[in-house]
């Protein structure tokens, strides 16, 4: 897009926009939102819903030798066209006029609304989309309020199983084709399409195929109506009861920006949140649905101390006193710490302080790797390995895991602290190995084999229950925000570390995660001068990693070619 600016009159006021700006984006920037269904800035624009029709005008073509009279501000007159144009696919032109609130524009909107509703079921109370349905919203703003339709509605398939995670109601579909374009243009899995024609057009999945790719649930997000719903979320909760928390996904190093929808400390749904530097508007199904365990009966809800081989629930004060007493009995060189790369930078800072207080430098992190999918899933399945490297000052945080194992085998590691990891299941340790240590303290959200092999077990909050910052695969600093409270006596890991440090006699006067962030800005030049409000909902670039996110790279290319707005 060139930097050349063009003057455009929108509802009587002149604005300037870069040449090539779509009319709909120009209107939005001018504060005149244009209703639309099919248009999506990340997809091609077929212009099929016709909801964004606006009245448009251009200066009249002067006769040879004639000069157009200009107004006081130097703008030519506008000759309004009798035929409306779609704002989504057309770009602004010099001295164009747009009317988003004229009789013609309003008549178009009212007409399209009426036509969209005549064959649409009017059963919003039993539709799962109610409350976040564009049809409902624009119907209130632009609809007639009463129906003139006396005919039988068109009958279409309902409750269609089109894939393992997405369900289709064809009667609710308004044929905007967003889902078709998403599966074709973004997910490279063009299994959706239309069959039949006219008013009998039905969205369907290709015979013998399923909408089963790992990005299928994004179609539910972009469906403006209740045609596509998530098998996981449908009919679980009315959306207006849900609290929204802007946070980030922790299933891999990409750190997709997400919204967590919760009610009364239960998460019901996760959706991607737009961040054009990280995940665009999308996220993988595998990450989106990985939250039901948070509500599991296996959650640890209170500190546990082993006595005579049996765990006993106790208070934080007591459990931390036991831990501190035991830890104080070892020399620093006898102690090893295993941290999780799921810890926030703030928690890692506390872990570092704990290590310093105990006098050990035997500290390692558990790796998690898988295959990158060439879209949004990173090969590094830890959300904050970059944070581990930076905060702990380790080039290879994984390397010392082996040293800890041999230390356990050789008896040089006598006390082991495991922070928010299950090293037996996730790092290849055995219960027997852990048993060689004299004292094991572990924290984790869930009951697990490592906890079974520990002497003190502390319930640490999971990602949705804590706040802090993480550094993603591209080196971007992003904020994790607490969406729900942990169950029972669960504490955020930075809190329990603070309390453990205090129990060890190392009080530091830190009372909030925000204060820890301030500490980071003191201690690390990379963080210097940053504030949490600067990091904001979208994060900031912090370090250079040389890594990119494939989907984002492709999106930039499509934007540069003018296929999408971006």
């Amino acid at each position, binding site marked *: 897009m060139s930097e050349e600016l063009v003057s455009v009159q929108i509802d009587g006021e002149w604005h300037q926009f870069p040449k090539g700006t779509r009319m709909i984006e120009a209107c939005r920037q001018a504060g005149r939102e244009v209703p639309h269904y099919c248009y999506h800035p990340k997809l091609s624009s077929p212009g099929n819903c016709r909801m964004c029709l606006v009245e448009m005008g251009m200066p009249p073509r002067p006769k040879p030798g004639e000069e157009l009279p200009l107004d006081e501000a130097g703008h030519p007159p506008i000759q309004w066209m009798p035929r409306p144009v779609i704002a989504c696919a057309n770009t602004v032109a010099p001295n164009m006029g747009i009317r988003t609130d004229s009789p013609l524009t309003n008549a178009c909107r009212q*007409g399209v609304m009426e036509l969209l509703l005549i064959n649409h079921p009017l059963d919003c109370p039993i539709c799962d989309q109610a409350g976040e349905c564009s049809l409902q919203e624009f119907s209130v703003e632009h609809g007639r309020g009463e129906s003139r339709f006396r005919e039988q509605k*068109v009958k279409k398939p309902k409750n269609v199983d089109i894939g393992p995670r997405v369900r289709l109601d064809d009667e609710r579909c308004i044929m905007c084709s967003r889902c078709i374009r998403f599966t074709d243009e973004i997910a490279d899995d063009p299994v959706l399409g239309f069959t039949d024609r006219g008013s009998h057009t039905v969205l369907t999945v290709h015979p013998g195929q399923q909408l089963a790719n790992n990005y299928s649930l994004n179609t539910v997000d972009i469906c403006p109506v209740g045609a596509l719903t998530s098998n996981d979320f449908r009919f679980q909760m009315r959306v207006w009861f849900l609290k929204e928390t802007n946070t980030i996904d922790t299933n891999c190093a990409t750190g997709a920006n997400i919204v967590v929808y919760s009610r009364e400390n239960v998460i019901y749904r996760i959706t991607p949140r737009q961040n054009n530097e990280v995940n665009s508007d999308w996220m993988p199904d595998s990450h989106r649905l990985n939250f039901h365990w948070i509500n599991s009966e296996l959650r640890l809800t209170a500190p546990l101390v082993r006595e005579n081989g049996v765990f006993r629930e106790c208070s934080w004060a007591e459990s931390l006193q036991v831990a501190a007493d035991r830890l104080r009995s070892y020399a620093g060189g006898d102690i090893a710490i295993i941290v999780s790369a799921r810890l926030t930078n703030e928690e890692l800072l506390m872990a570092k302080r704990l290590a310093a207080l105990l006098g050990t430098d035997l500290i390692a992190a558990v790796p998690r790797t898988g295959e990158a999918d060439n879209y949004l899933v990173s090969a590094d399945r830890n959300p904050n390995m970059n944070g581990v490297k930076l905060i702990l000052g380790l080039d290879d945080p994984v390397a010392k895991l082996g040293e800890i194992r041999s230390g356990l085998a050789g008896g040089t590691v006598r006390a082991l602290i495991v922070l928010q990891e299950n090293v037996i299941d996730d790092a290849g340790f055995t219960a027997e190995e852990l048993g060689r240590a004299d004292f094991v303290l572990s924290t984790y959200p869930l009951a697990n084999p490592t906890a079974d092999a520990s002497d003190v077990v502390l319930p640490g909050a999971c990602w949705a229950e804590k706040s802090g910052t993480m550094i993603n695969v591209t080196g971007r600093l992003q904020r994790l925000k607490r969406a729900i409270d942990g169950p029972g006596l669960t504490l955020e890991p930075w809190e329990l570390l603070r309390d453990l440090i205090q129990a060890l006699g190392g009080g530091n006067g830190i009372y909030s995660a925000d204060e820890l962030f301030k500490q980071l800005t003191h201690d690390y030049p990379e963080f210097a001068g940053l504030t949490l409000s600067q990091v904001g909902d979208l994060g900031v670039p912090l370090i250079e990693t040389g890594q990119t996110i494939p989907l984002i790279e492709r999106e930039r290319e499509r934007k540069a070619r003018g296929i999408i707005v971006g």
Partner: protein
Amino acid sequence: MADINYLPGKEPHAREHRMIFRNVDRAGWDTSIATYLKEGGYEQLKAALKMEPKAVTEEVKKAGVRGRGGAGFPAGLKWTFIPPNNTKPVYLICNADESEPGTFKDRYIIHQDPHQLIEGMAIACFAVGAKLAYIYIREEFPEGAKILEKAIAEAREKGFLGKNIQGTGFDLEIYVHRGAGAYICGEETGLIESLEGKRPYPRIKPPYFPAAMGLYLCPTIVNNVETLCHVKHIIQMGGDEYAKLGTPNNTGTRILCVSGDVQKPGYFEVQVGKVTMGELIHDMCGGLKPGRKLKAVIPGGSSAKVLRGGEVFKIKRGDAMVDVSLEDIPMDFDTLAACGSMAGSGGVIVIDDSRSISWVLNNLNAFYAHESCGQCTPCREGSLWMKKITDRLVAGQGAPGDIDTLDSVARQIDGRTICAFGEACSWPTEAFVAKFRDELVADTNPGTADAIVNRETLLAAANLAQ
């Protein structure tokens, strides 16, 4: 040139000027290239190949031939819309999807004189720089497709197609592509999508003007069968000479297809504007059926706005505006447009006083509801709604208010869709309501309004009747 004899009973009317249809229904004529060559076939291609491509386009522009598919856009001008700095391949597509109800001219060209079309296409391809051309033929013409395939093979064999045509270095291949039975494939961007193997959803314009971003997003010229045949005659006659046929801005000949309530329906090739509606119906078509009165005429294919018998139209004659009757309208592009309709595809549908207007409108609505591609909202939903309203009207269950609703639905479609189908499906309703409102209202049943919305009916509809 020998005198032409036509098959008995198929002789052209004296008012006709046979050029494109010169060989249609001709005695002793067949579709072989040998027959075509005997009558000077492919000589115009040879002549054109000796010209500069731009000069060929210039002749077509001078001829002023307007597209015979429906929109009536000047063909030569369309050819010049290919971007001058274009580096992509250029395609030419012959639109042989002839599917506008009331239109049946292209099929006779294809069935009886395929080489005329191929010669016209070859000249057009040479002019626009296309090395690859397609004939998109509707599914319902299986014989036509076979005839074209054979003709293309013959032309190839004789060196009028293929590599290095007639030793000039010009290469051209023509392929026949059969449609699958959808009216919308006649819309040029829908046709292009179909040719690309997709659903024939018309493209938005801008940006997808075919001359710049057509087939495979390359410059593409889409012309009607009849239009492309004219190209051959333009080269033969010269553009200026051709332009003397017909009337100014409405040059050449065109084939009118008359159907409906006349004694002798059929096709008539006339000089554009040289025959009036009255002459066409009462003379060329042998008049109305005995004892019948002219009720209405749809002058340019089923989507053209209907003209009412007895209506008075204001048209320009010389410098003056004069009042004329339906029968006095000259059959040309500009006059029919001035009368509020269009010359369209040349399909003239005659309706006499034995017909119920509600039935006629319902018939048209049913067609358009069935053929709407369903891509954009107004046409998809509105076309079926209009059909359902007229269904009730025909069944005697129309409510008095339905006529206003019908008209308002049509106006919610007109001008608000991706392609011209929106107008095609809404114009019949708009025009019939405007001109025959009384008759439509007379077909409604004043008691119906309550019957539709009363409680008993609703319960019965839900199988809950007590």
